């Protein structure tokens, strides 16, 4: 089974931090991220993970009546924005839940598990 693990968190809180504090928190969370990559690597050596740039960098594209409309993001009202994602092949849902709970962001944001539809 392939799963997408979508990482949600409140990025505005993160962006409001002064750079030194942000750097300190990053360093502090590093061991937890390494533990995650270790477990994920064991469960699926080919797993992919990506951190996304801030929502402020987003461009939103729609085609309206055949016209291309490009606007700034973020477009959602919700405080939590997607900040990263993993795509991984795991044995079953319980395994995906176990891995998701290891993502450090699960402690201050949330992880959404979506099975990838296979044809």
């Amino acid at each position, binding site marked *: *089974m392939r*799963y997408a693990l979508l990482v949600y968190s409140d990025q505005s809180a993160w962006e409001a931090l002064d750079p030194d504090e942000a750097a300190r928190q990053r360093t502090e969370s590093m061991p937890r991220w390494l533990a995650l990559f270790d477990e994920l690597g064991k469960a699926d050596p080919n797993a992919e993970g990506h951190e996304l740039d801030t929502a402020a960098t987003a461009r939103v594209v729609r085609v309206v009546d055949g016209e291309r409309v490009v606007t700034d993001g973020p477009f959602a009202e919700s405080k939590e924005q997607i900040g990263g994602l993993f795509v991984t092949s*795991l*044995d*079953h*849902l*319980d*395994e*995906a839940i176990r891995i998701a709970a290891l993502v450090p962001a699960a402690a201050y944001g949330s992880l959404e598990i979506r*099975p990838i*539809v296979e044809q």
Partner: protein
Amino acid sequence: MTPDERHGSLEATFREEWPRAVAMLTRVLGDLALAEDAVQDAFTKALERWPRDGAPRSPGAWIVATARNGAIDRLRREQTFARKAELLGRLQDVPADEDADMSSIPDERLALLFTCCHPALAVETRITLTLREVGGLTTREIARAFLASESTIAQRLVRAKRRVRETGIPFRVPPDHLLPERVPDVLRVLYLVFNEGYAATAGDALIRRELCAEAIRLAKLLCVLMPDEPEAFGLLALLLLQDSRRDARIGNDGELVLLGDQDRARWDRAAIDEGLRVLRRAEAMRRPGPYQLQAVIAAGHASGADPAAIADAYAVLERFDPSPVVRLNRAIAVALAGEVEVGLEMLDELESLEGYLYLPAARADLLRRLGRVTEAAAAYREALARSDNEPERRFLERRLTEVSPAAS
């Protein structure tokens, strides 16, 4: 045997053998829907052949072997199925001996139960799937029990099996470290099945009774499959003890009769004894839990225990389960133990039960006991406004008349 009796005994055999066969085939095929189709085919064949040729020596083994052969035929006809060769290979390992002893066939029912009760499924779906796959009830029987159309239930089951496959819900007994979080999910589904039959919110009494009996049967199965899980025995004890009072709960005119006013001669003594035996077995494991405590409370009611002891048991239960419903019941128990005003204060702290009928009903009762009739009448009216259950309404209306000043 009359044809009807023969059909009845076939039905009982089917319910017994269905989960064993579905579980076994799911383990091998890795897909609940494929497994169920194969087992359904085997049962259809049984329905043709057994009345004609007589039942086989080992009905369970016959079903497994026939389902296996049917699945092999089905797979061979399949042209495009990518995993065909692999699955055919695995099916070769399924016992093909129709006369085999059932003990030689691996029992995968517990894995099936955990799959059906997986928290990734909606609660309603878990209940339906459990009744179908583990209970062996037909779609029609489930539809009757829930006053739903057969097609609604059939659709729900199709979606459920697709959901299990597409989200990768595992077919397994969870590892030990996950059991404390997953066992309560299973217990809850069985409890909800029972409650659906017991609460009688609507529908035919006989069908409801069958639902309670089915929940008890499934709880017994869980005790067989998890003999070291005290909460499984706690749940079974609780269901038996509650069920023992079923007949006494409804009066001659169909009105609800409260525990204190029930005719004890109408309690089912055998069910109480069995419940108490099962509870002792749970308690001997010395790992208390919420179902055991509820069973302790139910046992206390059944044996006419000191009301203060029952109130104490609720205090312990509240530590395991501080939900508003438990707190409400504790408040009532405290009041019944003589401390009516303390009970009333505890009720007044429960603001979070908006829309829950039993809060105003309980308040009304305690106010009545304190002689505060005007407030009691207001609370009875509030409870009446929330109830659509006929026996309950009659009970509340009678009490409302009692606390209202006689009409001049």
